[in-house]
C-alpha cells in the first residue's frame, strides 16, 4: 500500500514488471521488494530447510528471504537480492526454493518434521543402510538443497573487469561517507565514492532526519550534486566494495546493466580492483532481529525497515503495525509511522525504564513471546512487565535488537572487532586495514551529527597520512542523540525462535550445538550451518554468538566472532572471470603464416599460447596419417617448409656475451666463431635440463639464442636472473625478439636449390656449411640464414622481420612446390625428429639430467656453469638412472603410446616393477612405429625386449630397446 506524500519514488512513472509469471505495476525508483510490498505481495520465498513461507525482512543487501532468479531468455541469474534490484519493464523475477508453486510448496512437509530436522540432522541420519546414500539420500538432498538454480546453458552475458586508482576511496555514501568525500574532494584529492545502492545518501534516504534544516535525503542529493561537478571525484553507485586486500587494493562489484531492459552493449556487471592510497570506510550499520517464537513469519520485519520502506518508497508494510525493541532507535519507527498517519498497534520495549512517550499503546518491560499466522503474521502474544499475557491483532511487526556496525571490511586482513558493552555491539579495531579509517556507524558512531563529524575527521586523518593538506569543512547541524540500549537476544519460551532466517537455524539449534560440545563459535557455526547462507550471517552472527555465550556461561567477547571473509556480498564468478571463457580464456599468439596455413586447410593445434599447423591435407587424403606420411617423405626426398617462428629468440649483445653464454650453457660458446651456430644445453641450478637449442654468433659481441617454444619465457627469465643476480658485472644485454622475426625451416635434399631460386645471391656449401650462419638478401630484404637441421636433412632456417613473414612463407611454399615439396606441419616435424632421436620437452620434462640424455660429456670441465656442481650429485649419475633410449616394435605391433610404462616381459605390470616409460611416439613411413623413452640403465640394454603397458589406454605390447637415433647416425644427410 502506497502512502501519499512519502518516498523518493517517481509517482508519475509507472513501471510494469513480472514476478512468478504475474505482471505487476510499480514506480520508477522501486526495488522488487518495495514494488511487491506496494502491491500487497507478502509471500516472496521459501526458507532453505523447512520451506517455511517468508516475506521481506529488511531494506538492504542483507535481506535473508528476498532472493529471486532473474530470467532473460535462456539466461538465469540466481540469488538476486530483491531489496537491491530495481524494477524495469523487462524484468522476469521468479521466487526460489520450492517444489510446486510458492503458495503450495510440497517441501513444507519438512516444517512438520522439524523435531527430527534440528542441527546436525544430516550428520546423524542417512548413515544407514549404507547403500542408500548414493542412490537415494544424496540425490534427494541435492535436489532439495541450494538456493536458486542455474540455467545450465552457456553464459552468454557480458561481464567486465576493470582497474581504478585514486587518492581516497570512500566506501558508503551516508552522512559519514558524504562528508568524508566532500572533505577529501575539497582538499584536492582524487576521490572515488562507492555506494552499493542505486541512490547516493545511504541511510539518509530511509530516515526522516533533517540536516541543516533540510530533509536528509535532499541534503544528500545536493552534496552529491556538488561532488558530481568536481573533476577530481568519481561517483560509483550500484557498486559494492566487497573486499579489502594488501597494499590498498579493494575489490568492488558494479551492477552495470542488471537494472535496465536493454543493456545496449553494456556488461551486466563489472568487477573492479580499486587501488587507493587511503580509504574511509563508512559502510554504516545493520539492525539485528530478536529471536522469539515464529519470528520468521511474513510481515515480521526489522523495525528500521518498516520506516525505511515508508520514507524511501512511500510504502506501508502493514495496516496495523506493532513494534518491538530494546533500544531508543526502534521507537523512531513508531514516530515515523504515526506522523504518516499509520496505525501503530503497540510499541513494546523490553526495557522497564525506557524513556519514551506516544499516543499509542506502549508496553515497557514487555516482550513478544510468539507470533501467529502462517502465510503472514496476524497477531502476536506478549508478556507484560506484570507477567500478564496479552494478545494483539497486527499484520506487521517490527523488531529491533540494536544495530551491528558493518565491521566486515575491517576484518578482511585478519582484524578482529572489539566488543563495546555500552553500544552492545562489536566495533572495529583501529588500524585493522592499513590506510583505511572507519567513519560513522560502521565505527559505532550512531547519531547523525556524530556521523557527519566522524566523516570529516576520518577523511582528514587519511589526507594527513597521504600528504594532502586537508581543507576545513564545517559539520552540518543534525540530531545528536545518544545510543540507549539494553541487551535482548532471545525471548525465552517454547517453540522455534529464528536466529538465521536464511539457513533456518533457531536458538535451540545453537543451544544443541553447545550441548553436543560444539562450543567454539567456529564449531557451532559449522555444526548448525548458522551464517553459512548467502547473507553470510549478516542478520544472525552476533545473535547466534550471544546465545552461545549465554548457554556456555561465557561473555560475548570471550566467545568471539567467526571470521569475516571477503566478499562482503556474493560476487558472481562470471564477473571475476570476465572475458576468460571461450577464446578469451588465454591470449592467442598467431604466426605470420597463420592465415595461409588455415587457408590451406591445416588444422591448427595449440603450442602454449601459439597456434601451429598440425598438417596440410591434400585432396584425397582422408586421415591425418596420410598427410603426415606424405610430408615426412617430402622432406626426406625433396624439400619442406615449416614455420618455426614460435621458438624463442633472444638477442644477446655485449663484450661479455660469450662468457655469459659459457655460464648458462653446459658447453662453450665463447670459442664459437662468428658466422657459426652451436647446439647448447642449459641446466637448472639443481642439475636438471632446463632447455636446449642453437645459438648463433652473428658478430664478435652479438649472439642470437633460440629456445624451445615451450620454455621461451622461462629461459628469458632465467637469463635475467643469472645476469642480474649472479653476475651483474658482466657487460651483456639481451632482449626477446621472438615476435620480431618470422623464421621458416627449409628442409630436405633440395633445400639449397629452393633457396637459390629465391635469394638475391646464391649460396653454396662453402659460404653456408653445416652449422654456418649469416646475412643473405631475399627480395632486397636482409634476412638471416642459419644452416641448422631439426629433421636430420640438409636444412636451413631463414628469418626475416615479421612484417615480411607472410610474403616469404608464400614465396617459400610456391618455390617448394616447384621442387616437388610443400609446407609441413607439427605431425611430420615430430616424426622427422623422432627418427633422428632429437629431443623436445616431451623428453626434457624437468626430471632428466644431461647424463640421462647422454650429453654429460658436453659439460665443459674448463669452466663453471649453472647446474654443474649439482649435476655431479650422487643419484643423478650412474646405472640407476633412467636413460634415453629408442623403442621399436618387437613383432607385429599395432599401437604404441607416449606415456606408457616399460616392464620386463615376465613381470606383472605394477607400479613397483616399472623400469621406464615412453615419451614420444611417431610413425615413420620408412621404419614403422618408433618411440623414444627412458629406461633404467637403458644405454647398456640396447637389444633387450620389454613390455610396454598403458593401463589407461589398454595397451600391452612387446618392444625392443635400441639406440635413440634411428636414421643416419653419422649425420651425413645434414652435411650433404
Amino acid at each position, binding site marked *: 500500500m502506497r502512502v501519499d506524500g512519502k518516498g523518493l519514488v517517481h509517482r508519475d512513472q509507472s513501471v510494469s514488471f513480472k514476478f512468478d509469471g504475474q505482471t505487476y505495476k510499480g514506480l520508477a525508483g522501486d526495488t522488487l521488494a518495495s514494488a511487491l510490498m506496494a502491491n500487497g505481495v507478502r509471500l516472496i520465498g521459501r526458507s532453505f530447510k523447512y520451506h517455511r513461507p517468508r516475506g521481506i525482512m529488511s531494506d538492504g543487501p542483507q535481506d535473508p528471504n528476498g532472493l529471486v532468479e532473474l530470467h532473460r531468455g535462456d539466461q538465469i541469474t540466481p540469488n538476486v537480492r530483491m531489496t537491491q534490484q530495481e524494477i524495469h519493464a523487462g524484468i522476469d523475477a521468479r521466487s526460489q526454493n520450492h517444489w510446486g508453486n510458492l503458495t503450495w510448496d510440497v517441501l513444507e512437509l519438512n516444517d512438520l518434521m522439524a523435531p527430527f530436522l534440528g542441527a546436525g540432522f544430516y550428520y546423524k541420519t542417512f548413515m544407514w543402510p549404507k547403500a542408500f546414500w548414493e542412490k537415494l539420500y544424496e540425490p534427494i538432498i541435492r535436489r532439495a538443497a541450494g538456493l536458486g538454480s542455474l540455467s545450465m546453458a552457456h553464459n552468454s552475458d557480458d561481464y567486465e573487469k576493470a*582497474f581504478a586508482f585514486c587518492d581516497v576511496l570512500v566506501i558508503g555514501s551516508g552522512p559519514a561517507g558524504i562528508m568524508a568525500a566532500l572533505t577529501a574532494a575539497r582538499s584536492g584529492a582524487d576521490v572515488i565514492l562507492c555506494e552499493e545502492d542505486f541512490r547516493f545518501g545511504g541511510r539518509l534516504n530511509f530516515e526522516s532526519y533533517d540536516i541543516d534544516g533540510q530533509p536528509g535525503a535532499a541534503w544528500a542529493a545536493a552534496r552529491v550534486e556538488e561532488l558530481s561537478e568536481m573533476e577530481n571525484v568519481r561517483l560509483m553507485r550500484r557498486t559494492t566494495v566487497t573486499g579489502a*586486500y*594488501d*597494499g*590498498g*587494493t579493494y575489490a568492488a562489484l558494479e551492477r552495470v546493466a542488471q537494472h535496465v531492459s536493454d543493456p545496449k552493449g553494456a556488461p551486466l556487471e563489472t568487477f573492479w*580492483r580499486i*587501488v587507493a592510497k587511503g580509504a574511509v570506510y563508512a559502510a554504516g550499520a545493520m539492525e539485528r532481529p530478536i529471536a522469539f517464537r515464529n519470528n520468521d513469519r511474513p510481515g515480521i520485519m526489522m523495525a528500521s525497515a518498516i520506516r525505511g520502506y515508508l520514507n524511501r518508497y512511500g510504502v506501508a508494510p502493514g495496516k496495523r503495525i506493532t513494534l518491538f525493541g530494546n533500544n531508543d532507535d526502534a521507537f523512531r519507527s513508531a514516530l515515523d509511522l504515526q506522523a504518516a498517519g499509520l496505525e501503530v498497534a503497540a510499541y513494546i520495549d523490553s526495557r522497564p525504564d525506557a524513556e519514551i512517550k506516544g499516543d499509542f499503546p506502549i508496553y515497557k518491560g514487555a516482550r513478544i513471546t510468539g507470533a501467529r499466522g502462517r502465510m503472514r503474521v496476524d497477531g502476536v502474544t506478549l508478556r507484560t512487565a506484570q507477567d500478564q499475557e496479552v494478545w494483539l491483532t497486527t499484520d506487521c511487526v517490527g523488531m529491533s535488537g540494536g544495530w551491528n556496525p558493518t565491521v566486515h571490511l575491517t576484518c578482511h*586482513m585478519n582484524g578482529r572487532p572489539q566488543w563495546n558493552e555500552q553500544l552492545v555491539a562489536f566495533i572495529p579495531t583501529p588500524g585493522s586495514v*592499513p590506510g583505511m579509517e572507519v567513519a560513522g556507524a560502521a565505527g559505532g558512531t550512531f547519531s547523525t551529527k556524530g556521523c557527519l563529524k566522524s566523516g570529516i575527521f576520518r577523511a582528514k586523518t587519511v589526507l594527513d597520512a597521504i600528504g594532502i593538506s586537508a581543507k576545513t569543512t564545517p559539520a552540518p547541524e543534525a540530531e545528536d542523540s545518544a545510543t540507549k540500549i539494553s541487551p535482548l537476544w532471545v525471548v525465552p519460551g517454547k517453540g522455534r525462535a529464528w536466529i538465521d532466517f536464511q539457513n533456518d537455524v533457531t536458538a535451540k539449534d545453537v543451544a544443541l550445538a553447545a550441548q553436543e560440545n560444539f562450543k567454539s563459535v567456529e564449531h557451532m557455526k559449522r555444526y548448525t550451518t548458522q551464517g553459512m547462507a548467502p547473507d553470510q550471517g549478516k542478520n544472525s552472527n552476533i545473535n547466534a554468538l550471544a546465545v552461545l555465550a549465554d548457554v556456555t556461561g561465557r561473555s560475548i567477547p570471550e566467545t568471539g566472532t567467526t571470521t569475516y571473509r571477503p566478499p562482503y556480498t556474493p560476487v558472481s564468478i562470471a564477473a571475476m572471470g570476465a572475458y576468460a571463457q571461450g577464446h578469451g580464456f588465454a591470449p592467442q599468439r598467431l604466426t605470420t603464416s597463420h592465415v595461409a596455413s588455415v587457408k590451406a586447410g591445416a588444422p591448427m593445434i595449440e603450442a602454449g599460447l601459439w597456434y601451429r599447423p598440425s598438417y596440410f591435407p591434400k585432396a584425397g587424403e582422408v586421415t591425418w596419417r596420410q598427410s603426415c606420411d606424405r610430408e615426412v617423405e617430402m622432406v626426406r626426398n625433396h624439400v619442406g617448409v615449416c614455420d618455426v617462428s614460435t621458438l624463442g629468440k633472444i638477442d644477446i649483445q655485449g663484450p661479455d656475451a660469450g662468457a655469459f653464454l659459457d655460464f648458462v650453457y653446459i658447453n662453450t660458446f665463447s670459442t664459437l666463431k662468428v658466422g657459426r651456430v652451436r647446439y647448447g644445453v642449459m641446466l637448472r*641450478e*639443481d642439475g636438471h635440463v632446463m632447455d636446449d637449442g642453437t645459438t648463433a654468433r652473428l658478430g664478435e659481441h652479438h649472439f642470437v639464442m633460440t629456445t624451445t617454444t615451450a620454455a621461451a619465457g622461462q629461459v628469458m*627469465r632465467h637469463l*635475467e*636472473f643469472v645476469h*642480474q*643476480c*649472479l653476475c*651483474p*658485472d658482466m657487460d651483456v644485454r639481451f632482449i626477446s625478439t621472438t615476435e620480431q622475426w618470422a623464421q621458416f625451416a627449409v628442409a630436405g635434399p633440395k633445400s639449397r636449390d629452393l633457396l637459390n631460386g629465391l635469394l638475391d645471391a646464391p649460396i653454396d656449401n662453402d659460404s653456408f656449411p653445416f652449422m654456418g650462419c649469416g646475412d643473405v638478401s631475399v627480395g632486397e630484404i636482409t634476412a638471416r640464414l642459419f644452416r641448422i637441421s631439426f629433421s636430420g636433412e640438409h636444412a636451413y632456417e631463414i628469418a626475416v622481420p615479421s612484417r615480411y613473414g607472410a610474403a616469404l612463407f608464400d614465396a617459400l611454399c610456391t618455390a617448394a612446390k616447384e621442387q616437388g615439396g610443400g609446407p609441413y606441419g607439427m605431425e611430420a616435424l615430430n616424426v622427422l625428429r623422432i627418427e633422428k632421436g632429437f629431443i623436445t620437452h616431451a623428453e626434457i620434462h624437468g626430471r632428466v639430467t644431461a647424463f640421462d640424455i647422454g650429453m654429460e660429456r658436453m659439460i665443459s670441465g674448463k669452466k*663453471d656453469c649453472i647446474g*654443474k*656442481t*649439482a649435476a*655431479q*650429485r650422487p643419484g643423478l649419475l650412474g646405472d640407476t638412472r633412467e636413460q634415453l633410449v629408442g623403442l621399436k616394435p618387437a613383432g607385429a605391433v599395432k599401437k604404441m603410446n607416449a606415456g606408457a610404462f616399460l616392464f620386463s616381459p615376465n613381470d606383472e605390470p605394477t607400479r613397483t616393477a616399472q623400469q621406464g616409460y615412453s615419451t614420444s611416439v611417431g610413425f615413420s613411413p620408412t621404419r614403422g612405429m618408433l618411440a623414444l623413452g627412458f629406461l633404467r640403465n637403458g644405454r647398456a640394454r640396447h637389444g633387450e625386449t620389454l613390455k610396454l603397458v598403458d593401463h589407461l589406454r589398454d595397451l600391452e605390447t612387446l618392444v625392443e630397446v635400441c639406440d635413440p637415433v634411428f636414421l643416419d647416425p653419422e649425420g651425413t644427410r645434414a652435411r650433404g
Partner: protein
Amino acid sequence: MRLTCPICGDRDRREFYYLGAADYLDRPVEGEAEATHRYLHLRDNPAGVTRDLWQHEAGCAAWLVVERNVTTHEILQVSLAKDEIRDAR
C-alpha cells in the same frame, strides 16, 4: 598485494614473478657439493620478516629483493637485486 618496483613504481603483484628466498643470491663456488646442497634445498621459514626474490616480469624485467613481513603482509623494502649484490661485495 602491490610492490613498488624501484624502476617502474607502484604495481599490482600480477606483474611480478616470485622465485624464492634471497639466499639464491649467494651462489657457492664450483664443486662445493655440500654448500650447493644448502644453497638449493635448505631454507629458514620465519614467521616474520623474509627477504625474497621477485622479478618485475611484466614490466622492466628487473630482479628485486623484497623484504616483507609474512605475518602482517607489510612490505618493508624493495631493492634491485644487482644493487644488493654489489653492496654485499
